[in-house]
């Protein structure tokens, strides 16, 4: 896998684009994310806060960055540790 890869949740509608890739398993709704989705499993209630369209998520160390390109019911984690929303520092529009 590399930056630019699109991953799908195995348990909900979430899709993410990998912007920065560290080492570890990328999960959504408590299950590893996949490139091709098969039969949908169930969202683990511990990872069910949901993902938001267009938001970026990172791990605590900042080695991963994931862009949500389709929202869903599961929430993102790396090796079982929940990801956080990356704070957006708003810039004035320059275009």
């Amino acid at each position, binding site marked *: 896998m590399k930056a*630019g890869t699109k991953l799908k949740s195995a348990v909900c509608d979430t899709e993410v684009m990998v912007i920065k890739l560290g080492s570890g398993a990328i999960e959504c709704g408590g299950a590893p994310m996949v490139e091709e989705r098969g039969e949908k499993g169930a969202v683990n209630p511990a990872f069910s806060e949901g993902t938001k*369209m267009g938001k*970026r998520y990172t791990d605590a160390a900042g080695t991963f960055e994931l862009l949500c*390109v389709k929202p869903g019911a599961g929430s993102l984690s790396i090796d079982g540790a929940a990801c956080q929303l990356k704070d957006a520092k708003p810039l*004035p529009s*320059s*275009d």
Partner: protein
Amino acid sequence: MDISLLLKMAADAEPDRVGLTCDGRDWTYAQLWNAATGAAVQIAKSGAEHVALLDTGSEAAPIALFGAALAGVPYCPLNYRLADADLAALIARIEPAYIVGDVGRVERLAPGAKHVVLSRADFVAAAEAAADPEREAGEGEGIAVQLFTSGTTAAPKAAILRHSNLVSYILGTVEFGAADPAEAALVSVPPYHIAGIAALLSSIYAMRRILLLPAFDPKDWLTLCSTQRATNAFVVPTMLSRIVETLAVTESKPDISPLRAIAYGGGRMPVELITMALDLFPVANFTNAYGLTETSSTVALLGPEEHRAAQASDDPAVRARLGSVGKPLPTIELEIRDEEGRVLPTGEAGEIYVRGDQVSGEYRERSALLADGWFPTRDAGYLDAEGYLFLSGRADDVIVRGGENISPGEIEDVLLTHPSIADAAAVGIPSVEWGEAVGVAIALRGDVAPSDDELRALVRDRLRSSRVPERIERVEALPYNEMGKLLRREVKKLFQ
């Protein structure tokens, strides 16, 4: 990931929201996406290796831009204002191409070439008819956009921007869907300029409706601004100057009160002009953006609060920032270096170097990036104590007289203090004695023409003898391109 994802996200999030208004037609994000996928089908079928646009701004620009991305072919908008010979040379460099726009001109300039050429209307109709909405965005490994540089100092270079450069720029500077539904951005920069490409990408990702003005005219700009209630606009300094002039002489002022954000860039903004604009638009937020084609647009910004703080300040250092281009983006590293590549301290002028994921620094022929990723911009400038960037011209414009480096700007600034001089340009002219000597071209204001001796004395008194012009040419007006960039190679020809 390729740039078509930016449009796909807007179309998935709010398919029925209007994303573009042009020539009285509204386009929703879903309609734009569908047309882009249809364009991709047509482009892929044609076997073309470039997608070119030879046209003013219209819906065809975003449809071709995203359609080319989805087909995995570089998008290469061309400057329709170029003279026939120059344009023919560029069209030959992109064969075989899928060309949208002026069919007659392409047929005349490239007879028998292996191009597929369509009018705007035929292209848009074919794209809408062939829509393939489920089409997937590609990996985005390749080139998204190829732009021929304006060639103010030499022949045009083919600058390339990869999908990764443009996506990094957008993700680093724009929050997805951040625009309020009432927001609308008036886009009047031509489609072949990096600012025209960046405007499409940024506005679509922010989900700010684009109001496309096909070709800039100050009256049309003001009319579109008031009738469509534009909230944002990007202008080059020449456009702002013409808008300010037009407003001053218009009897019934158009209501442009919704206009809250004016961004400008693409050329040197005279301090007098921005000061006048700040007074004329007292509630507008002004943003100065500095960037290059090779850096995917903006790398430094002077924001609205900084403009107002500078305008209101009595501190000369703070006030001077109205003439700066602000601070580097958080995602950009920026340094000032000397000719040996050593980093210079605060306040010293040298060449501007930048580094970041949005920086391509690549041309078709070669990459100008250094091994460690730094890009020498060839722009000259310095940083003040607070880290504000000031530009002092192109590094290539420096006049080297007997081993001494002379910045044209310092001579021009002195000449412009003379009440009879409306405009001035200093260039290096061949000299047997010095290698290069200073030549200046001046445009006069009014009928009083100062003598050569008077002007030489002015420069000698304010600067020093090496800056004194060897030759002075008087012209009606200095040569600028349509984006307001001074064409120094044309000025040099005055001395041949």
